[in-house]
């Protein structure tokens, strides 16, 4: 590329030169003009001065001439003056009258006397009296000469100036050429041929390292650096973009999910093969025809259209300043689509707006997914074994029914009665525990079938528990009909089921509850009521089918409250041990006491044990209570033993505490820790213990006795015990239930019984305690029968510890009369 040449009149030198020339010329002209003006004035002044001096020289002669009015002299004088080239004309006047005059010959027009020529006037005075004027000399200067001289001078000056200016201009031109033009030209030439990308840069012209040109060169080089860098960055970006585009393209083409783009009109602008496959587009429809997304065989294009407009409205405008609000919002939905091959599928469509008002979309087949979801949902509410609905399904249906009949809904719905029946297969667990699980399942299935076929008018039958079914009835028949129907169904279901040859018979019970209008938690409440009804049916005496009684709820509530109170009592120590003295009937002495737990309820006061013991046993709180009682008893025993008193204490032990709630080791540890002799602690158990858990009880019994503790059998004669148990279980004492003692005086049968028991006990080496000794007669008779110990109101009711010592002290005097009487004497004849 050739260097660009500038036109000569564009070049710096020419322009600057021209400017300079112009300025200089102007300056020169101005100077010359000024000079001219001043010079003229000066010249004129100088001329005037000279002429004045000239006049001075002739003054004396002029004065003589004028004095004597000598015109010749005056003429001579004038002639003399005129010899001076600066004089144009002279006039000598004497006394106002011209004496002589003359003027120079006019050689050119300028020499003519112009009206405004300056005339020098010199007054001439008498030579002999200087104050007396005698005449005048009027001298007209030769303007022409002055002008000529002036012109001459001006010419010279102009020439001089021109020379100077020329020199200056030349110097300037030279300097500019050297310092500016040449370096710039050099730079320009180099720039043309320079390839910045190859690293070529400008060189600083010699001598310009610190000058503006040098700085310019440095800046240009820096710019070149920056540009080259930018270029490289751009290139890198471009390469990256190409890579990304290739990647995108690969993904686009090979993706399994359908990808597509639609423009602002809703027409498909691009789509990938997967999309074509899903939507059944043939490859021929590649960009020739315009396809609108909405036109593709959707089952219902409306939601899609809405989706599209939502998508467009929310975002994609990059020019707005507010950030977060306008981030593109992706919209998605699942829509049904009919493929050209006839198959209906569910397709998930996800739309995202992109900046230029287009929309990007992802499409994939979710048919299986949805079906799986639906199936899962169905499974969630279905019982696996029977195929009926499960608890979840039932609750859903129940909730729906309740909502559908809510009079307070908007719009109000007519109130319908809803009933829930809970059916329990009471013995199922027991039956199936020893069987193959498959047999259990078969049993359930068969029972389910029988129930389903037998029940009429049920909205839904469900299996809600391992051995529980439930019926949901909307607008149920009257209660009586329900009951009858259920009885029929139960009868059918309770027929033996033959599985693997063996007959299995179930027992059923049912609880029925009705949905009442406005409760906080209708579903839970209904279940709760039905549950209570069922429990009542199972536990109570009246029939296998029970309707919910509001009292049941109340009772349940009370029970719950009691249980809570009981827990608090245990935690807060609201229990108090009461002691009922045990008296040796033969010797008439206090030998010990039965420790009975009493509950000081903060609100209810002293709560009797039969109000809370059964609940404690059911809830397992009995263990804590038992431990507490034993602790108190043990401490008291230790205190007595420390004081040297030989008394024992007996503590009631519930069947529920055996064998795990009160281990022999724990007892042993207790005795060790509190420091009392094990023999002084007796544990009272009832016969029922021995019946229910025979082996465990026996082991416990033996272990406890092995540790040195004593065991009494309480309420003897009231349970299902057989006499053989006495043989099997070794206890230390029998306590005859008060029922036998009460009518001792009047009932011979009781007497015989007591006697007999006493005799049996004796033979086994056991002692007997009579419970419920109420009067002296009892004492006498018991003594006569040989009964060893007694306990009852005659001696004292159960009292707190502080009262016990007092009570205990009175025992001897109470018994004294009996001891005084002959042993074995019987005031009344046996009848």
């Amino acid at each position, binding site marked *: 590329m050739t260097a660009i040449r500038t036109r000569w009149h564009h070049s710096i030198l020419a322009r600057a030169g021209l400017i300079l020339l112009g300025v200089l010329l102007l300056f020169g002209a101005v100077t010359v003009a000024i000079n001219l003006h001043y010079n003229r004035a000066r010249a004129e002044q100088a001329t005037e001065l000279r002429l004045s001096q000239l006049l001075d020289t002739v003054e004396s*002669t002029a004065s*003589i*001439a004028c*004095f*004597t*009015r*000598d*015109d*010749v*002299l005056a003429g*001579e004088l004038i002639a003399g003056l005129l010899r001076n080239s600066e004089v144009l004309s002279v006039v000598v006047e004497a006394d106002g009258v011209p004496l002589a005059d003359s003027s120079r010959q006019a050689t050119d027009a300028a020499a003519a006397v112009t009206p405004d020529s300056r005339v020098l006037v010199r007054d001439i005075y008498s*030579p*002999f*009296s200087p104050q007396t004027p005698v005449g005048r000399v009027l001298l007209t200067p030769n303007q022409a000469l002055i002008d000529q001289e002036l012109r001459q001078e001006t010419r010279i000056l102009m020439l001089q100036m021109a020379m100077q200016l020329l020199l200056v201009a030349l110097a300037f031109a030279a300097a500019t050429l050297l310092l500016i033009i040449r370096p710039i030209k050099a730079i320009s030439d180099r720039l043309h041929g320079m390839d910045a990308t190859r690293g070529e840069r400008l060189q600083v012209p010699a001598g310009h390292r610190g000058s503006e040109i040098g700085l310019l060169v440095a800046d240009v080089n820096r710019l070149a650096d920056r540009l080259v860098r930018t270029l490289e960055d751009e290139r890198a970006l471009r390469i990256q973009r190409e890579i990304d585009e290739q990647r995108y393209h690969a993904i686009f083409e090979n993706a399994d999910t359908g990808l597509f783009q639609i423009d602002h009109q809703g027409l498909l602008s691009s789509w990938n093969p997967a999309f074509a496959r899903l939507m059944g587009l043939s490859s021929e429809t590649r960009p020739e025809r315009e396809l609108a997304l909405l036109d593709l065989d959707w089952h219902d294009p409306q939601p899609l259209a809405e989706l599209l407009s939502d998508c467009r409205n929310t975002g994609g405008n990059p020019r707005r300043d507010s950030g977060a609000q306008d981030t593109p919002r992706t919209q998605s939905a699942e829509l049904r689509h009919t493929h050209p091959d006839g198959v209906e599928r569910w397709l998930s469509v996800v739309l995202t707006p992109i900046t230029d008002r287009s929309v990007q979309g992802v499409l994939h087949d979710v048919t299986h997914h949805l079906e799986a979801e639906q199936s899962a949902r169905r499974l969630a509410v279905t019982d696996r074994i029977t195929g009926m609905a499960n608890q979840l399904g039932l609750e859903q249906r129940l909730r729906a029914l309740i909502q559908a009949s809510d009079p307070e809904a908007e719009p109000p719905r007519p109130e319908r009665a809803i009933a829930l029946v809970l059916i329990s297969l009471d013995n199922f667990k027991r039956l199936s525990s020893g069987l193959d699980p498959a047999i259990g399942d078969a049993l359930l299935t068969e029972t389910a079938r029988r129930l389903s076929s037998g029940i009429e008018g049920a909205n839904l039958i469900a299996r809600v528990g391992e051995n529980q079914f439930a019926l949901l009835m909307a607008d149920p028949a009257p209660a009586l009909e329900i009951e009858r129907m259920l009885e029929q169904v139960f009868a059918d279901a309770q027929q033996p089921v033959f599985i693997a040859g063996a007959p299995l018979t179930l027992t059923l019970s049912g609880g029925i509850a009705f949905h009442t209008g406005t409760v906080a938690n209708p579903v839970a409440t209904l279940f709760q009521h039905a549950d209570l009804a069922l429990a009542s049916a199972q536990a109570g005496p009246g029939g296998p089918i029970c309707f919910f009684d509001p009292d049941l709820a109340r009772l349940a509530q009370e029970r719950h409250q009691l249980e809570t109170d009981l827990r608090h009592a245990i935690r807060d120590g609201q229990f108090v041990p009461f002691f009922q003295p045990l008296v040796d009937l033969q010797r008439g002495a206090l030998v010990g006491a039965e420790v009975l737990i009493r509950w000081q309820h903060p609100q209810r006061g002293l709560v009797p044990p039969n109000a809370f013991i059964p609940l404690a046993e059911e809830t397992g709180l009995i263990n804590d209570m038992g431990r507490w009682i034993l602790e108190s008893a043990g401490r008291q025993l230790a205190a007595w033993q420390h004081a040297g008193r030989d008394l024992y204490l007996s503590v009631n032990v519930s069947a529920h505490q055996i064998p795990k709630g009160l281990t022999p080791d724990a007892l042993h540890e207790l005795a060790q820790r509190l420091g009392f002799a094990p023999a002084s602690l007796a544990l009272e158990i009832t016969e029922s213990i021995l019946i229910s858990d025979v082996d465990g009880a026996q082991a416990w019994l033996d272990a406890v006795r092995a540790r040195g503790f004593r065991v009494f059998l309480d309420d003897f004669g009231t349970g299902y015990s057989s006499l053989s148990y006495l043989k099997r279980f070794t206890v230390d004492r029998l306590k005859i239930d008060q029922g036998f003692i009460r009518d001792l005086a009047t009932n011979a049968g009781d007497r015989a019984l007591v006697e007999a028991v006493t005799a049996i006990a004796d033979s086994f080496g056991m002692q007997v305690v009579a419970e419920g000794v109420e009067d002296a007669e009892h004492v006498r008779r018991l003594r006569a029968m040989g009964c060893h110990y007694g306990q009852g109101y005659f001696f004292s009711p159960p009292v707190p510890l502080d009262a016990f010592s007092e009570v205990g002290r009175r025992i001897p005097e109470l018994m004294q009369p009996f001891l005084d009487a002959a042993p074995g004497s019987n005031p009344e004849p046996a009848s």
Partner: protein
Amino acid sequence: MERRTGAHLLLAIVLAIGVGAARAAEPVLVVMDPASGLDRLTREQVINIFLGRFRRLPNAQAAVPIDRSRDEALMTDFYRLLVDKSPAEIRAYWARLVFSGKTEPPQKAHDLDDMIERLANTPGAVAYIRPDELSERLRVVLGLGLGLGPEPGR
């Protein structure tokens, strides 16, 4: 002749006074022939006559000035008192005028008698004497340096 005597007396007094001053010009009298018909000339007229400005007597007669060329002192005093110029200056003056030919310098009288004779013979002749040279053949027309009137050069 009473007047002349008075003038003489006055002259004497003034002279006496004037003796003490720095050497001033001694008085000079400007005279004419008694037959001239004039008995008075003004100073200016005398100047005009003697210096060639206007050689006419008040009676329109042409005036002829006469110098006492040999009496240097007298000439000196005369011109000194008249125009306060030295004889050299007067000579220089006349040098220029002679050149043009328009005016002639005053005639030159050798001595007093010559002067008197010229006065008698030349109508309109005017000369000057010392006061002690005065006789009845002369008429004084102007007195210079007598202490009367303004001195020249003031």
